């Protein structure tokens, strides 16, 4: 019985990997492939957001900033030829981990809404810095001259390359996070969300684990940011701000934060929705489709929070549970 149970656990992963591998065979449009690459990258961010808000109970709004650091640091280092691009990815991740550690220790002591305010403050300050440090970052117009990613002689240049790279990153992050959530640290952090007093009385050092999760999600975001900048060969301050934050919140909420998979589903839905809206709205509002999609997303978030508060995954789980209860009911009445 144990053996078959063990096998069952791996099924969703195998399905995901299969889909990722075989999708390019079915879809030949490189536009669609590139959208799927973004689904993966934003998915990494959204998963992090989901873990922070849903499991750990931390209102941390700072994900876009780590994304931005990952992009800018790797991009700047590569553009100036200071380090090979692959190393740049690692350097930015280490740097972000350090900053997250320094900022996290004092900030994570803040409760709920105040943590949101403080992390929002960091988001805005970082965005201002990206603009003000124009020497380094290219200011408003963005960072240019980023070479393509080369690792060990292999040059990542096509959409397909970045598609596989992004999904490799996404699946690794998803696996790591899923393992953590279902382990001792994950339980401790979920418990501390339910009751700080009870979990500390059981030996859980809450600040330590909160900081660890904070750093984990920051490193994830940084890695995604680095891949992002090598893919686009570009980075600009406007990308890493309020608009992205709203999108990420929407992804997390619509997918459901009770589960690590939910935000990935949310990323899929929202990224594609944005593309579809852009195509449609492009007819009516050619100039400002970014902000306009924000209106749709705003309405969408509110509707989801009112009518489907546990997100799609939560909703599907509810349906499954209901179905199982009906099944048991039928089984027991048939047995009579």
């Amino acid at each position, binding site marked *: 019985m144990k053996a078959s149970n063990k096998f069952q656990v791996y099924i969703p992963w195998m399905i995901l990997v299969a889909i990722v591998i075989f999708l390019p065979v079915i879809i030949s449009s490189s536009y669609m492939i590139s959208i799927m690459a973004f689904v993966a990258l934003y998915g990494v961010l959204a998963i992090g957001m989901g873990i922070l808000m849903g499991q750990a109970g931390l209102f941390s709004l700072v994900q876009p900033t780590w994304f931005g650091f990952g992009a800018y640091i790797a991009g700047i280092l590569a553009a100036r030829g200071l380090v090979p691009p692959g190393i740049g990815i690692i350097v930015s991740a280490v740097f972000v981990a350090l900053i997250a550690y320094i900022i996290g220790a004092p900030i994570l002591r803040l409760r709920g809404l105040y943590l949101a305010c403080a992390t929002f403050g960091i988001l805005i300050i970082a965005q201002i810095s990206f603009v003000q440090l124009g020497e380094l970052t290219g200011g408003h117009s963005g960072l240019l001259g980023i070479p393509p990613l080369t690792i060990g002689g292999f040059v990542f240049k096509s959409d397909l390359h970045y598609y596989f790279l992004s999904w490799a990153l996404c699946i690794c992050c998803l696996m790591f996070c899923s393992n953590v959530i279902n382990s001792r640290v994950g339980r401790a952090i979920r418990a501390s969300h339910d009751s700080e007093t009870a979990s500390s009385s059981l030996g859980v050092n809450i600040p330590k684990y909160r900081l660890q999760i904070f750093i984990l999600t920051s490193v994830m975001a940084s890695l995604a940011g680095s891949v992002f900048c090598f893919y686009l060969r570009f980075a600009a301050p406007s990308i890493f701000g309020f608009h992205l934050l*709203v999108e990420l919140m929407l992804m997390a909420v619509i997918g459901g934060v009770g589960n690590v998979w939910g935000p990935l589903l949310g990323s899929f839905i929202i990224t594609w929705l944005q593309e579809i809206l852009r195509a449609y709205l492009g007819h009516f509002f050619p100039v400002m489709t970014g902000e306009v999609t924000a*209106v749709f997303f705003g309405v969408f978030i509110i509707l989801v929070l009112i009518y489907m508060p546990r997100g799609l995954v939560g909703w599907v789980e509810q349906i499954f549970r209901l179905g199982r209860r009906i099944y048991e009911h039928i089984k027991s009445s048939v047995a009579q």
Partner: protein
Amino acid sequence: MTPFAEIIQYIISGVTSGSIYAMVGVCWSIIFLVTGIMNFTTGEFVMLGGMLTWVFLGAGIGLAPAVILAIAATVAIGIIVERLALRPVRYPSEMTNMVITIAAASIIKGIILITCGSETRVIQALIPVKQISILGAIITTQTILVIGVLAVMAIGLSLFFNRTLFGKALRATAINPKGASLVGIRINILIVFCFGLAGGLGAIAGIVIAPITFTGYNIGLMTGMKGLVAAIVGGWNMTGTVLAGLGLGLIEGLFGGFISPGWKDAIALLVMILFLIYRTISFSDGVNKV
């Protein structure tokens, strides 16, 4: 301009923007104290004040009616946000309310962008412009108006909360919602009132500052945040918020003038973050070691 006059000039402009932050901070406080919600559409109320006035002026209405209409419309929008977006949530949590108000702010911003375009707009001075020279610096009647409006607002609100029955009911609800409803206070009506009041006050702030700093679809974010900083640092009460707002404006004005205008906006947020961190340190007196 002599350096001394420069300082005075920065102080004047600092106090002006500080007055706005104070007013916006009061809007945040009213809603937070009574409902516990941090309403992220507060900044958009300010934006709406200016933008809607511009819209109505453009439709050919006179200045005074345009202002009144703009304030009324913003009050209505504030009430709509509460009724349509916040009230229907079945199990509201802090996180849900925050996300909803952020979403609502996005919606308001986007709609204004669609209907009014992305350029900054100017509305004419509200009172005849005169420039007065003080210690070598120049202060305009418009600036005096802003400070005057703040004073009136502060005094008016404090009379309202302390002397009128309705105001006292609001304070009671802020302290103990269950208790308040038990003595017959209709909390739902009070909450609607708070959102409307915050909308109106925010619009007024947006209107008085618009002739000085122009207005546009995206001013809500930063102005709102700075008002929030004032409210947090001021401890959410009226006096504290007003003082914090003015102080913030001053620091910003001097910093922006002498050190770097580009980084000016970051100052407010840095102040907030440092204040919040300081609070966690000073609060660890052993009450809760967790």
